[in-house]
């Protein structure tokens, strides 16, 4: 089944019409665009990764722009002394007047002298460091010789020419994979991959315990030096949809990737848990029994917002890669009508279990030409638009209600107990619009 909207319906533009096959013989229409992208680069992931791994420091090797980006994205300077910094390249480094490697070693030494509490240091590549081909892999090997075992030094790239927003987390976790210890090959174990709030991990752990699934480890861990084990008896459940490189690296170490929808909303969480239970040979009856109470709680808390969201038309600009799972939740469990659902890139492997649940009427879009997408958005005048911070106020000023998407990567939204909170994030702008009389 192919349901492609005509160009009129999608508001014009010369986007490439295409479809993506989902399941047996059906397909969803996809607009593929390239042009100006109103999306963060992978450096932004530092903002939540440093909160998760409290013994880690992130040193961006880049320009003043990189430093400015991270501090702007971090919500404007909340921490007096953060666990991230930038080694800013200067003219001398570029002109070869100073040896960039020596300079980097000096910065790292200065930093580690100042912060004896740091156990893991990530050197994070940026657009300029990539373009001048500064080899951070070699730099981290060299620095490891000096600082191990006190500090382990790793590297990854968060550059905008290679990574989009949440892909920075993928690159960071991918860099950790070779350092994970081997798991006991005899005992099956579960690895949940993707940054989750600690409180969410604890909730999920309780559910896995009740199901009889375990032992369960989380990746990234709360301390970067306490890496979880990995091996042929490891099953992987992805908690976030943007970790394809990490997933591939884990599979290369023998692990098995379980394909499931993401644990957003009650339905997503149940399907996600069920997949783990299946891998452990646990029957659906057990899953139903264990999840009955939390599902009920989640439904009740979603119900509070459902009346505000039901039938409302949703337009999502590409941002975090969470768009498709979120759209599925908002459609299935909150009754929203999906107009366009944009995503920075469409990774079929990562989205398989989500795409089959998408309504046939959705218009997917991949990549971005922000001006054209804004034209389409204005043409359909959605009830709610999910977009980045650069677009939200301008769209509000045009009379559209918006939800800024960055909150979706900073707030705990996964699992049953957060399902109501997640619905509320989308209901709040609509509620607010109703209240305001000015």
């Amino acid at each position, binding site marked *: 089944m192919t349901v492609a909207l005509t160009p009129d319906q999608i508001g014009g533009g010369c986007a490439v019409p295409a479809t993506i096959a989902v399941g047996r013989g059906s397909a969803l229409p996809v607009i593929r665009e390239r042009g100006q992208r109103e999306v963060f680069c992978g450096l932004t992931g530092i903002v939540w990764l440093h909160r998760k791994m409290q013994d880690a420091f992130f040193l961006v090797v880049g320009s003043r722009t990189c430093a400015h980006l991270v501090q702007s994205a971090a919500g*404007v300077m909340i921490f007096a002394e953060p666990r991230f910094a930038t080694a800013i390249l200067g003219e001398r480094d570029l002109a070869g007047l100073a040896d960039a490697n020596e300079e980097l070693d000096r910065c790292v030494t200065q930093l580690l002298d100042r912060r004896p509490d740091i156990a893991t240091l990530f050197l994070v590549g940026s657009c*300029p460091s990539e373009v001048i081909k500064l080899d951070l892999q070699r730099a981290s090997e060299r620095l490891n010789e000096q600082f191990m075992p006190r500090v382990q030094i790793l590297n990854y790239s968060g550059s905008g*020419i290679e990574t989009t927003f949440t892909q920075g987390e993928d690159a960071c976790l991918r860099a950790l994979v070779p350092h994970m210890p081997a798991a006991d090959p005899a005992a099956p174990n579960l690895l949940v991959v993707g940054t989750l709030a600690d409180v969410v991990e604890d909730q999920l752990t309780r559910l896995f315990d009740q199901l009889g699934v375990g032992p369960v480890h989380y990746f990234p861990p709360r301390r970067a030096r306490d890496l979880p084990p990995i091996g042929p008896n490891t099953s992987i459940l992805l908690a976030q949809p943007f970790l394809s490189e990490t997933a591939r690296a884990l599979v290369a170490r023998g692990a098995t990737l379980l394909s499931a929808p993401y644990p957003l909303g009650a339905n997503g969480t149940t399907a996600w848990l069920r997949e783990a239970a299946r891998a452990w040979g646990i029957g659906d009856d057990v899953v139903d029994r264990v999840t009955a109470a939390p599902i009920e709680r989640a439904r009740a808390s979603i119900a509070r917002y459902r009346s505000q969201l039901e039938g409302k038309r949703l337009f999502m600009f590409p941002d975090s890669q969470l768009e498709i799972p979120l759209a599925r939740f908002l459609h299935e469990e909150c009754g929203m009508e999906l107009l366009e659902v944009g995503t920075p890139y469409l990774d079929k492997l990562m989205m398989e279990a989500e795409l089959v649940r998408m309504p046939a009427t959705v218009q997917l879009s991949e990549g971005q030409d922000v001006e054209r997408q804004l034209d389409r958005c204005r043409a359909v005048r959605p009830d709610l638009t999910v977009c980045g911070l650069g677009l939200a106020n301008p769209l509000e000023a045009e009379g559209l209600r918006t939800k800024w998407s960055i909150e979706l990567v900073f707030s705990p939204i996964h699992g049953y107990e957060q399902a109501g909170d997640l619905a509320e994030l989308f209901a709040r702008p609509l509620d607010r619009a109703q209240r305001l009389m000015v």
Partner: protein
Amino acid sequence: MQLTLWTYEGPPHVGAMRIATSMEGVHYVLHAPQGDTYADLLFTMIERRDRRPPVTYTTFQARDLGGDTAELVKQSVRDAYERFKPDALLVGESCTAELIQDQPGALAQSMNLPIPVVPLELPSYSKKENWGASETFYHLVRTILLPMMPAAGASWPRPDRTGRRPRANLLGATALGFRNRDDVREVTRLLTDCGVDVHVCAPLGATVADLRRLPDADFNVVLYPEVAETTARWLQKSFGTPMVRTVPIGVLATREFLEEVGKIADIDVAPVLRRERAGEAQASASRSLLPWYSRSVDSTYLTGKRVFVFGDATHVLAAARIAKDELGFTVVGIGTYSREYARPIREAAAAMGVEALISDDYLEVEQRVAELAPELVLGTQMERHIAKRLGVPCAVISAPIHVQDVPARHSPQMGFEGANVIFDTWVHPLMMGLEEHLLHMFKDDFEFADGATPSHLHATSKHAAPASAVGRTDEESEGSDTRDVVVAASPATAVWLPPAEAELRKIPFFVRGKARRNTERYAVDHGITQITVDTLYDAKAHYGR
């Protein structure tokens, strides 16, 4: 390579964005990779602008680098021109594009667009945001006015003054400038009051057509030298437009500003000045309340308060003078991140007998604040964090701006009203400090214990706790906070005896860290190993304050 935790200024292309965003009908094509669009949110979130900045990003990716990124520039220029139909186009690059050397400015110029195209070369690896704003404004004005420039040897005719009031251009106000919106309104009011009309305000709110009218003004007012000085000098050289250079921040500077305006415009400003004299505040329609508030007796506690001042050069120079001459503080240190203005800052520091700190290194600023142990910090949002950590009151006087620096109410820094705003903004944190001290003093009283019923309600609560319920105070944590930061290296050879420790806690928390440090230093210097109450007071007498 420079290790940087926080930056005071963004890269120079953000300065160019500030110029484009300030104006109407100017569009900026920026050759930049994905991610550089983050800068849009500075304008839409911090300033709550209702439109996106007029910027088109080429958004190149790694896979484009082997191919034709130059064509991508041309396509973006074409698309931006078609879609936005601007009156002038700025074309430049961000840090990464600078490395691939596509020269987007030259490419755009070769496209023969029917509008002025201004190529911007803003070296990202050596220059910063304010410099970028200044260069962009200058090149834009120059490109627009070049066709009108008098031939060599000739001079631009001075505008005819007959039958009209003198008129002035206000130069330098931009998007993301600290209170610029309100300063423009205030200075306009000030000039209007003394009979001068504002001719063009640029870049904030100006069109390209407005820029063409710049030479018709009688004089230029340089509101923010960081952004406008280069342009104003060029206008003076090319069109003979004189400039007023006094920045009217503070009562004294505002008076001098008006005198300078009077001289340059040949008008009598005495009536306006007379109205704003100290002491007349209560009696007449004066708007200037700072002089009277500063003289009123309740302000005596401000006398000699030790202040540290840091920010951009314009605001620091003004703030240091206000602190010293208008509020009676003692300036213990000044500094700036505006390296371009290191000289005037050093001169001002020398005149006040302190050392200037010229640095954009947040850690260095923090260290200086810790060493000087001021009682009030006047700085940027970053100094606000430093001050918070050190337990010192702080007021924000300069960019980089924060959403709090764009208040809904009219809140200028310039003019007499600006001085009023400054009085309130600086004095309130000190009052809050005092209030907090009182709370600490009283919190051992049973009425302040947790669970005590508020005194204005009936004391029926059974668990109204007696003094014994008072838990351990959190003063220690504050004390240790200060210690961690300030004196990590302090030799812990002297031990505090409990009575001395208890006495220390009676000292207001915002000077307690300093008292602790001075006492410890005194003890070490005098070979004292056990600190008693006497040691504490000996040290106090020794160090004076």
